[in-house]
C-alpha cells in the first residue's frame, strides 16, 4: 500500500516537472519578457540591467532550476498586463472558480449517476429513450451555447436568475470569498453551475449506463439473481458497486476538466474566476499568467489522479496485492 502510494507520488512529481518545463519554455521563449515588461520606450542599458537582474543571461538549466524553486514557493512572476504578482491574481480569483466547479461537479455526478442507473435498469422504457436522445443533443451542444440559451430563457425572458457575476460574496479568512452564504450568491451560481455541469453530466450518464449494462450481463449478476437476492440487492449492491470501478476513473478525470471548462462558462457569465483571467492572458499574450495557469491545472489533475487511484484501490480488492500471495 505504502509502496503503491510512493510510486504514484513519484510519477506525479515527474509529470509536474514535465509540465513545469513546458511552462518555463513558455515563460522564457514566448515573446520577449524584457520587451513585455519595459515596453518599447526603454533604453538599451535599462533592458540589459533588467535582463541581468532577472538572470536571463544565466545558463538555461540554472534559469529552469530558479523557475522551479520560485514556482514551488508560489512565485510565478509579475503579470505583464496587470502589473501584479501572478500568484496573487490567481488566489484572488480561485475561490470563485472552485465554488463553481464544486457545485457543477456534484450536480454532474449525482444526476449523471442517477440518470445512468435509471436508463440502464429501464432500458426499454419510453422515458429512458427520451433521456438518451436528449443526451445526444446535450453532447452536441457547445457549452457556451447552453449558457447563452439559459441566460436567454431564465435571465432575459423569465427574469428568475441573474445572468452575470457572483452576486454578493462573504469574505472568509484572508484568501477565501464565498457566494454560498448569501441569497444572491446562491442564485448567481445556478445558471453557471448547470452550464458547466451539463456536458459532464451527459458523459457520466452515458458511461454509467454503458458500464452498468455490461455488468448486468455478467455471470456473477446472473448467479446473484439465481440465489434469489432481491432486485434491489442485485442492482444496487452487486451491479452498481462493480460499475463504480471504471466510472470512478473516468469521472475523476472529467471532474478535473470541469476546472478547465470553467474558462468558457466564466466568460459567458462574467464570472470573476481564474478561467476568465486565463482567457485574457491568452488574448493579450500575458505569458506569466498563462504559464502559472498551466501549472495550476496540471497540479489539480495530478491531485485528482492520485485521489482516483486511492479510491480505486479502496473499491477493488483485487488491487490489494498483499494478500494475493496466500492464494491457493
Amino acid at each position, binding site marked *: 500500500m505504502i509502496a503503491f502510494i510512493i510510486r504514484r507520488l513519484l510519477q506525479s512529481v515527474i509529470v509536474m516537472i514535465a509540465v513545469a518545463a513546458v511552462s518555463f519554455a513558455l515563460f522564457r521563449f514566448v515573446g520577449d519578457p524584457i520587451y513585455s515588461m519595459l515596453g518599447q520606450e526603454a533604453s538599451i542599458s535599462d533592458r540589459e540591467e533588467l535582463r541581468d537582474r532577472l538572470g536571463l543571461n544565466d545558463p538555461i538549466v540554472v534559469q529552469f532550476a530558479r523557475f522551479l524553486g520560485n514556482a514551488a514557493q508560489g512565485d510565478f512572476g509579475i503579470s505583464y498586463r496587470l502589473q501584479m504578482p501572478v500568484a496573487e491574481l490567481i488566489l484572488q480569483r480561485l475561490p470563485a472558480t472552485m465554488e463553481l466547479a464544486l457545485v457543477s461537479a456534484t450536480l454532474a455526478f449525482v444526476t449523471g449517476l442517477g440518470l445512468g442507473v435509471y436508463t440502464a435498469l429501464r432500458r426499454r422504457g419510453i422515458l429512458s429513450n427520451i433521456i438518451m436522445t436528449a443526451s445526444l443533443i446535450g453532447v452536441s451542444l457547445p457549452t457556451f451555447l447552453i449558457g447563452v440559451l439559459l441566460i436567454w430563457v431564465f435571465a432575459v425572458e423569465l427574469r428568475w436568475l441573474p445572468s452575470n457575476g457572483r452576486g454578493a460574496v462573504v469574505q472568509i479568512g484572508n484568501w477565501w470569498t464565498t457566494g454560498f452564504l448569501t441569497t444572491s450568491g446562491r442564485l448567481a451560481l445556478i445558471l453557471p453551475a448547470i452550464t458547466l455541469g451539463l456536458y459532464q453530466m451527459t458523459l457520466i450518464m452515458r458511461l454509467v449506463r454503458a458500464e452498468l449494462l455490461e455488468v448486468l450481463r455478467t455471470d456473477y449478476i446472473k448467479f446473484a439473481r439465481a440465489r434469489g437476492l432481491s432486485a434491489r440487492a442485485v442492482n444496487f449492491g452487486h451491479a452498481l458497486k462493480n460499475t463504480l470501478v471504471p466510472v470512478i476513473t473516468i469521472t475523476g478525470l472529467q471532474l478535473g476538466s470541469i476546472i*478547465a471548462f470553467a474558462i468558457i462558462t466564466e466568460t459567458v457569465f462574467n464570472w470573476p474566476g481564474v478561467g476568465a483571467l486565463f482567457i485574457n492572458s491568452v*488574448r493579450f499574450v500575458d505569458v506569466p499568467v498563462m504559464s502559472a495557469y498551466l501549472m495550476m491545472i496540471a497540479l489539480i489533475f495530478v491531485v485528482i489522479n492520485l485521489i482516483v487511484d486511492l479510491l480505486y484501490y479502496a473499491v477493488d480488492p483485487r488491487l490489494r496485492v498483499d494478500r494475493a500471495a496466500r492464494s491457493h
Partner: protein
Amino acid sequence: MTPETPVSEPKTPGRLYRAWDSDLAYAFRTAPVAIVATVVVLIVVVCSVFAPLIAPMNPYNPAALNLMNGFTPPMEPNAFTGEVFLLGTDGQGRDMLSTIMYGTRTSLFVGAMAVLFAMVMGISIGLFAGWRGGWVDSALMRIADVQLAFPAILIALLVFGIARGFIPDALRDQLAIWVLIVAIGLSDWVQFARVVRGASMVEKNKEYVQAARVIGAHPLKIMFRHILPNVMGPVLVIATISLALAIIAEATLSFLGVGVPPTQPSLGTLIRVGQGFLISGEWWILLFPAITLLALALSVNLLGDWLRDALNPRLR
C-alpha cells in the same frame, strides 16, 4: 464523406472494395437518422460553399448594406424601407441568412482543415510509433496520454496563445485563421494516432508485411500501402466525430474572442455578437446562428455514430 479518396489500394481488387461499399450503402439506406443527418449536412455544406453565388447579399460588402434596414425582425417588412428578410437583419442591416451562410463557410473551413491537420499528424505519428516500437513508441504514447488527460479546448487555447506570442502584431489578424486551425488540429491528433498505432502493431507482424520487408520494400511504402488501408474505417469514424468537435471548438474559441478575426466572422462570432442583443429583444440575431451550429454539430455527430456502428471497427 467520400470514402474513395485515400483508399486506393492497388492490391485489393476493385470488386472487394465495392462490396464493402455496398454493405455500407445498404446500412445507410435502412437508417433514417443517417439519411436525415446527411441531408442536413449537405444542405449546410452546399449553402456555405456556394454562399457567394446563392446568398441574397454579400454581408461584408459595405456598399450592399443599408443602415436603415438595421434590426429588421424575420419575415416582417422593415419600418423604413419595407424590405423583408427571411431571418431578419443585424444592427448594420446585414441580412442574417447571408451572414449565417458566410459564417458557416468560415466554421466549416476551419473545422475541416483542423481535422485534416490532426489526421495527417495523428496517422504519421501513429504509424511511426507502431512501426518503430520500443522507447520511441512509449515516449510518443505517454505524451498522447498526458495530452488526452487535458481538455482539448485548453490545449487549443494554449497553442493559440503561444502562437500569438511568436507572431508579430501586424500579421496576427491575417494569420489568425491558420493559427486557429493548427491550434484545434494539435488538440485532436491523439485519437488518430492511437488507432493507427494499434493497427500497425498488429499488422507489422503479419506475414505479408514480413514478406514485403524481405523483398526489400521501403518501410514507408509498406506502411502506407499495407497498413494504412486497414485502418481507414476507424480513421473515417474518428474524422467524422472530430469534425463535429472541431466545429464546436472553433465556435467556442471565436465565442471567447480568441478565434477568427472580426473581418471573417464564424458561427461562434455571430453567437457572441447575438448574445449582446438578447436583452434588447433582437433574439433572431442569436437564435438563427445558434440553430445552424447545433444542427450542423448534431448531424455530423449522428453521422459519426452511425458510421461507427455500420463499420463496427475496433473503436469500442
